[in-house]
């Protein structure tokens, strides 16, 4: 304590100066506490109130994000809280994206009949979600190994709770249990990797120039080992291939809105984390022992192939979407390996569009599950003509997920392809070409399984008549708006792209 005193005022100034850049997170913390207290005070009747508070709060946070754009520029990187967090335009964009997607997710949480039937109601869920968003924000900004670990854990713990939210359902409990076990193991591995890196370099701050110089002096096998361990930890959240095995079971078992959550926001945040994590390693010449481009390319190719081909044989809608989300991770990794600003922009666009389409797909899965109890693809037989509007929306959403024109998904694919091509043109790295070709082939594979839903909806006939619900409910309205947005962003991508 005595030794610290000369530094204390300096540190306090650093913290104090960081606060203006930390406003969205402060708002989020406050929001978390308010939702929690509301839940405690009003008990079972608090659901609606919590919902409204969470909504308005998230909107406020998103507004704060937008305000931060004026503070942020990519040339000037701002370090916060003694180099714990980084503040730049990219992290702000990622945070804004996460908040927008979270808003949709909060909207969606209350629509699933099975989840709403929960005896404890959903107030707790809203609290957990808001808490996890705080963690996601931190993930987007972490450049310190400790901050990385803490933010990932924050999100993980919230995710475990959500996956097992319907603990009375065997499926949900099983999903939660699996998730916790695998997640704990992944965290341990990540922590081990971090401790090795810390041991090698003597610092936790990966943005520091010292970090690279120190690391370069270490035995190459040691570095590679440590980096692989850290990658496993991050990859668990991204769900790329060697560490993807938890995804299908958890996505299938978790309540559908939670699946929507798990398949979008943590993934976006993990990509943001990877974007912050990589530059310290790849732009340092002496650290050539570990070729990130090669490793991530191989992972990308394998992930695309494995995810898409495994999805072909699925019959459960959520399970199929789980595998397809693995495939999408592989595709997004393709944008990462460009290590270029254009690649980053295309990554954000791709993730934004993927998140919207994936949520819309799961919302529609909820719609059909609520209306008819259909959970398997084969249960959708002949429903297309009975629920024409929802089915047409489903087709549009799936088109976007496949990446066919005219849809936002196609434009996202096009941007990623252009970014990779642009880099290939300059360095002629054969792996980039392999990535491009794999991306193209898996698109065809993706069509093959995505089209199974329209196939069952429209092409297959079913004899038995099912009562038709004509009412235009909010789930349907959401799907219609989402589909229209997906088409509009396919025709005029400028509107979104210019934000990035």
């Amino acid at each position, binding site marked *: 304590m005595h030794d610290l005193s000369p530094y204390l005022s300096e540190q306090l100034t650093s913290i104090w100066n960081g606060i203006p850049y930390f406003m969205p997170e402060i708002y989020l913390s406050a929001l978390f506490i308010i939702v929690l207290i509301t839940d405690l005070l009003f008990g079972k009747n608090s659901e609606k109130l919590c919902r409204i508070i969470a909504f308005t709060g998230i909107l406020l946070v998103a507004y704060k994000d937008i305000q931060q754009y004026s503070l942020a520029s990519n040339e000037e990187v701002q370090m916060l809280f003694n180099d714990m967090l980084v503040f730049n335009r990219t992290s702000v964009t990622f945070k804004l994206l996460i908040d927008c997607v979270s808003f949709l997710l909060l909207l969606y949480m209350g629509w699933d009949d099975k989840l709403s039937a929960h005896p404890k109601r959903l107030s707790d869920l809203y609290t957990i979600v808001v808490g996890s968003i705080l963690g996601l924000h931190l993930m987007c900004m972490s450049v310190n190994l400790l901050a990385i670990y803490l933010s990932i854990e924050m999100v993980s713990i919230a995710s475990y709770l959500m996956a097992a939210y319907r603990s009375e359902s065997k499926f949900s409990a099983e999903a939660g249990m699996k998730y916790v076990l695998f997640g704990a193991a992944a965290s341990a591995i990540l922590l081990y990797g971090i401790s090795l890196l810390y041991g090698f370099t003597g610092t936790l701050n990966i943005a520091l120039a010292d970090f690279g110089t120190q690391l370069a002096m270490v035995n190459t096998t040691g570095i590679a080992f440590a980096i692989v361990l850290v990658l496993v930890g991050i990859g668990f959240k991204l769900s790329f291939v060697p560490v993807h095995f938890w995804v299908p079971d958890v996505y299938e078992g978790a309540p559908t809105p939670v699946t929507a959550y798990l398949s979008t926001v943590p993934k976006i945040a993990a990509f943001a984390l990877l974007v912050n994590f990589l530059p310290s390693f790849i732009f340092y010449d002496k650290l050539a022992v570990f070729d990130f481009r090669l490793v991530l390319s191989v992972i990308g190719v394998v992930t695309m192939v494995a995810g898409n081909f495994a999805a072909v044989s699925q019959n459960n809608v959520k399970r199929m979407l789980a595998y397809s989300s693995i495939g999408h991770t592989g595709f997004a990794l393709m944008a990462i390996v460009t290590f270029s600003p254009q690649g980053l922009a295309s990554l954000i666009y791709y993730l934004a569009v993927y998140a919207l389409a994936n949520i819309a797909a799961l919302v529609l899965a909820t719609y059909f599950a609520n209306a008819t109890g259909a959970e398997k693809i084969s249960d959708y037989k002949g429903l297309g003509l009975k629920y024409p509007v929802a089915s047409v929306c489903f087709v549009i959403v799936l088109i976007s997920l496949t990446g066919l024109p005219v849809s936002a998904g196609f434009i996202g694919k*096009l941007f990623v392809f252009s970014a990779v091509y642009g880099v290939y*043109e300059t360095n002629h790295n054969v792996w980039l*070409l392999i990535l491009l070709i794999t991306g193209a082939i898996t698109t*065809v594979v993706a069509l093959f399984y995505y*089209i199974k839903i329209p196939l069952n909806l429209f092409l*297959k006939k079913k004899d038995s008549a099912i009562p038709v619900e004509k009412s235009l409910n909010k789930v349907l309205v959401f799907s219609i708006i989402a589909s229209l947005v997906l088409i509009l962003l396919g025709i005029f991508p400028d509107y979104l792209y210019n934000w990035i």
Partner: protein
Amino acid sequence: MNILSLLIFLPVIFGAVILLMPSAWRGAFKYITLLATLLQLGISIYIYLNFKTGAAFGGINNESQFQFVQKLPWIGLNLGSVGRMQIDYFVGIDGISVTLLIMTALVMVIAALASWEIKSNLKGFFALFLLLDMAVIGVFCALDFFLFYLFYELMLLPLYFLIGMWGGVRREYAAIKFFLYTLFGSVFMLLVMVGLYLSVTDPATGNHTFNIVQMMNPANYTNGAIFSALHQQTIMGMPARTVGFVVLFIAFAIKVPTVPLHTWLPVAHVEAPTPVSIILAGVLLKIGGYGIIRICMGIFPEVATSGAFWLGLLGVISILYGALNALAQRDLKRLIAYSSVSHMGFVLLAIASQTAEGISGAVMQMVSHGFLSSMLFFLVGVVYNRVHDRDIYNFRGLGSVMPKYTVFVMIAFFASLGLPGFSAFVAEAFSLAGVFKSPTVNGLLPYWMAVCGAVGILLSAAYFLWTLQRMFFGTPLFKGGEVWRIALQDINLRETLTLVPLAIMALVLGIMPSLVFDKINDSVLALVSFLQVK
């Protein structure tokens, strides 16, 4: 309002009207669709009549020579170090497109008339029909590769549902096979498109561009770009431009379809309802041929020349293989599907010759086949709707039961097999003349290919005449007996009205081929000289 844009988007407007109308008015949907297609035909006739000809309107690689052009900035994104992404809404036509446009418009009217047989889900059917209509017209007008690709892909989904929902017994299989086949070709086309876009800059603005016309000029390629003509880049050891050409060619060859990529076609045709078969054969196959001329040869002319022999060989194989398969078919619709493969082979062979006669013949063949195949598929539909069977051996002596019908069948058959006086004769004569000329003029194709093409005509005579003899001559005898005999009423007024314009077109184009040749001549000459300069 640009008249081409009006032509492209008119169907969607009507489609939206249909979607918004209550289902109770479903009886009106077919009339609305017919009205849309008729309006479209009117506009396309107006375009045809006002289409200027002359050496100054050649088009092809000269942007200022295109007509009815509309060019609007559409997507402009700042991509930082890579420069700006420039995508234009750029439509325009030259001689190659104008005749195909009017052919498409007429075929669409025919298809709308054939849609009277559709009885279920009328709203969905006609909305998809009109969406498809927009996409095919758009493909023929687009001069921006991005726009072209958009329209090209936009055709797939409506067709998938049109075949899959209103098709025959194996419709699911046929629809998915068609979809996967075409998508397989087009995703790789997407990769080449992105590569081209990053290689080409617009000299006017300095941005990377998707403009097809700019892609034809080797000077617009940036130094060291992947598809630059001057720098021989390689992709995995193969010359990049050859790879680009082959990929694009495969995408279009699937559409044409060229043997061995044709296997989706018989299935799709057999399962598709009549109007969809008409659109498939009449219009969609032409998009393959059009794409090869406009995009493959336009952007990679030197590869097209060096690979001409192989293109010609594929054409010859398609002609012969398609014809021999047609001979072996029992199903009338399958027979006609294979005859399409054979006839489209002429297009490929003639294009490969790279002579003025050959390319004129190819375009003529596309126009002529558009009308004749529509007619043939409509005729098959007539019998099928009456007795739900189209096995050749289940019918005999139709001639005396349905005399008027038989007249049209004979016109269609004789026109298709290349009887002088009909359009197909002119088309095939020009195609073969071009191929015969090729060895002496540019030495691209050997003589035996032309000979094989001529044998193909002979084979087509064989299968058409044999079918005529088996089904229409002799004493009436049907598998279904008296029931069929009563069901097989002669064609009604609507059917006659549908068939008459097609028959007239086949005859008129046979007698006055100048209707087509006058319009395409300047563009064909421009293309040939462009190919020679390289």
